[in-house]
């Protein structure tokens, strides 16, 4: 398949999915619709995890931090300031960004597993704070009684699950479109190049740490928006929404989705949340077992995730046809392998060769 045909196919598939997503609430009951809305919210957090894990090379277990900050900010704004959706989303984004700004000095100097551990600590601290700061967060009881949301000034409050789902879909769509457009600018290229060969980028005068910091704050804002949407979708918030299990499921969903692609992140997160939320209804007690099996299977079959699988296969076929299948051409050195897809010329000199040698700065170990 030529790249143009593939791109066309992808676009057609994306448009089809969008139609299905919009039509969905008319074909299922209200409870399933609200589940879908929550899945969308978590998919948006998954996108922010993918932005850090796959594109910036900072694997994170801590996006539940800005997500929680955005959620509580959204809830407090909804209860005390304004029921306007735009205000809540902006408040969530700002709080998430501020949260990320406060934690960024801890994260950007580290790489690899150390980032994983630091972000784990940040996430745990956030949950602890949310559980104990009772006057603001309602403690472990959470915050309930959040008034219905008006998307913009003058609109009627959203009373049905269907309306709330569509509102969530629109906001998630806008945020993701903005993100994709930003990543297609030279800024996105710089980010990927920093991930693939940090030493070389530094040598050519790029401030990699600065790029990573900006990305971290941006991912915090996205997670903050997701937090404010959680308030709309769920109308309730408690520390249980941000625990270690949520963080781990998000990261693993993103890894299943291929980590480097936003579509993959959405699909992977949705799959994981579907197994957790829907199958637990159909097969009570077996959801963790199925999820566990899914993770083990993914680790074996798709080392770079389901979405990375096709590009991997393509590169394998290409190298076979060139007769270069040296032992070093083993696919799947993990998510920080060579850049996929035919990127514009700008990245070409930075691509890691077919020998698949690891990029520097990512073989992170505990010091």
């Amino acid at each position, binding site marked *: 398949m030529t790249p143009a045909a593939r791109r066309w196919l992808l676009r057609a598939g994306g448009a089809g999915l969008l139609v299905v997503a919009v039509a969905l609430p008319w074909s299922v009951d209200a409870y399933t619709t609200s589940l879908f809305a929550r899945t969308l919210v978590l998919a948006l957090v998954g996108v922010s995890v993918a932005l850090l*894990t796959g594109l910036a090379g900072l*694997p994170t277990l801590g996006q539940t931090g800005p997500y929680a900050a955005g959620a509580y900010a959204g809830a407090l704004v909804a209860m005390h300031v304004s029921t306007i959706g735009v205000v809540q989303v902006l408040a969530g984004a700002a709080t998430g960004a501020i949260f990320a700004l406060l934690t960024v*000095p*801890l*994260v950007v*100097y*580290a*790489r*690899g*597993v*150390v980032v*994983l*551990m*630091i972000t*784990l*600590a*940040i996430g*745990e*601290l956030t949950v*602890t*704070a949310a559980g*104990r700061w009772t006057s603001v967060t309602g403690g472990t009881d959470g915050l309930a009684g959040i008034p219905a949301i008006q998307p913009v000034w003058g609109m009627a409050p959203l009373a049905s699950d269907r309306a709330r789902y569509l509102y969530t879909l629109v906001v998630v769509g806008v945020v993701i479109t903005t993100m994709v457009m930003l990543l297609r600018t030279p800024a996105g290229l710089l980010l990927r190049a920093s991930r693939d060969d940090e030493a070389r980028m530094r040598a050519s005068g790029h401030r990699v740490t600065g790029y990573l910091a900006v990305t971290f704050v941006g991912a915090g804002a996205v997670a903050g928006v997701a937090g404010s949407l959680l308030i709309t979708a769920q109308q309730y918030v408690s520390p249980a929404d941000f625990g*270690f*299990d949520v963080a*781990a499921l998000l*990261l*693993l969903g993103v*890894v*299943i989705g291929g*980590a480097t692609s936003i579509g993959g992140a959405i699909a992977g997160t949705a799959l994981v949340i579907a197994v957790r939320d829907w199958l637990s209804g159909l097969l009570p*007690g*077996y*959801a*963790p*077992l199925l*999820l*566990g*099996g*899914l*993770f*083990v299977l*993914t*680790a*074996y079959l798709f*080392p770079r995730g389901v979405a990375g699988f096709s590009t991997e296969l393509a590169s394998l076929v290409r190298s076979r046809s060139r007769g270069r299948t040296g032992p070093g051409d083993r696919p*799947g*050195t*993990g*998510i*920080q392998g060579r850049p996929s897809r035919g990127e514009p010329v700008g990245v070409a000199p930075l691509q890691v060769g077919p020998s698949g040698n690891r990029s520097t700065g*990512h073989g*992170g*170990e*505990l*010091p």
Partner: protein
Amino acid sequence: MMPQAAPVLGPVDPYLIPALDGVAYGLLLFVAASGLVFCFGVANILNLAHGLLYAIGAYLAAGLMDGGWGSLLLALGVGTLAAAGAGGLLAGLLAPVARRDHLTQALLTFGVALGGGALLVTAFGPDSLPVRIPAALDRSVEVAGYRYAAYRLVFIGVAALIAVLLWLAVARTRAGMLVRAAVDDADMVACLGVNPARIRLGVLAAAGALAGAAGVLGAPIIGPAPTTGDTVLLLSLVVVVLGGLGSVQGTLLAALAVGEIQSLGVALAPTFAPFLLFAAMALVLAVRARGLPGRFLRLRAGGTA
């Protein structure tokens, strides 16, 4: 410590019991976390299923112990062996992805932890189970004028013994020598003719045995429940980070510190203690991560001078 002249409570006394609890808790964490240190330091595996290995021991303790000494020994033996076997199984599962990055290992081991945890809940039920310890230990003894659970005192003794044995094994035996060598330079150990697959198997089985023993002995302290695996995994990760991978002593100090923060810290500063653990972890990691490029730069400067 204040002298025990009168039955009046001195300023330190109310904290004696939490401090002792902290020692017991810390030693328990030491036994559990030292397995994780081996996994990470020797085999370079981020084993997110480590909490599951502890939970296996704890559930077996709840299932097998009936209040007699024989059943305690039986549970200790079965729990240690079962968890060691589970560790060996994990090594087999990890073999095909051994050369991949930590995230793949995390995916695999977390999957095993989820699935295994679900199986344990299916087998033993979703409630936290009571553990019946021998009657001779199920009472309280007098410690400096306070009543204290006899089991915890004995546990402190047994866990301290395990710690000493572990230190001797690492410092004085050939296997311990290999462990230390692999922490320093795993590639060189492989070059010297030691099969990395065998090291991985041995390390994971040993880690399983330690976690299983900790699970059986610690079941009256961190009991079997669906959340046990996560709790032990998170606390062990904190111990690994604070104590480093270099030495048994470092792990011991870190585990004792975590135990004291969890009990004495909560008694002394209930507002701040819950944050102390993970804040310390984040700071230690961030400072180390920032320290590395600094050293790198200094080396470079020295080279050019």
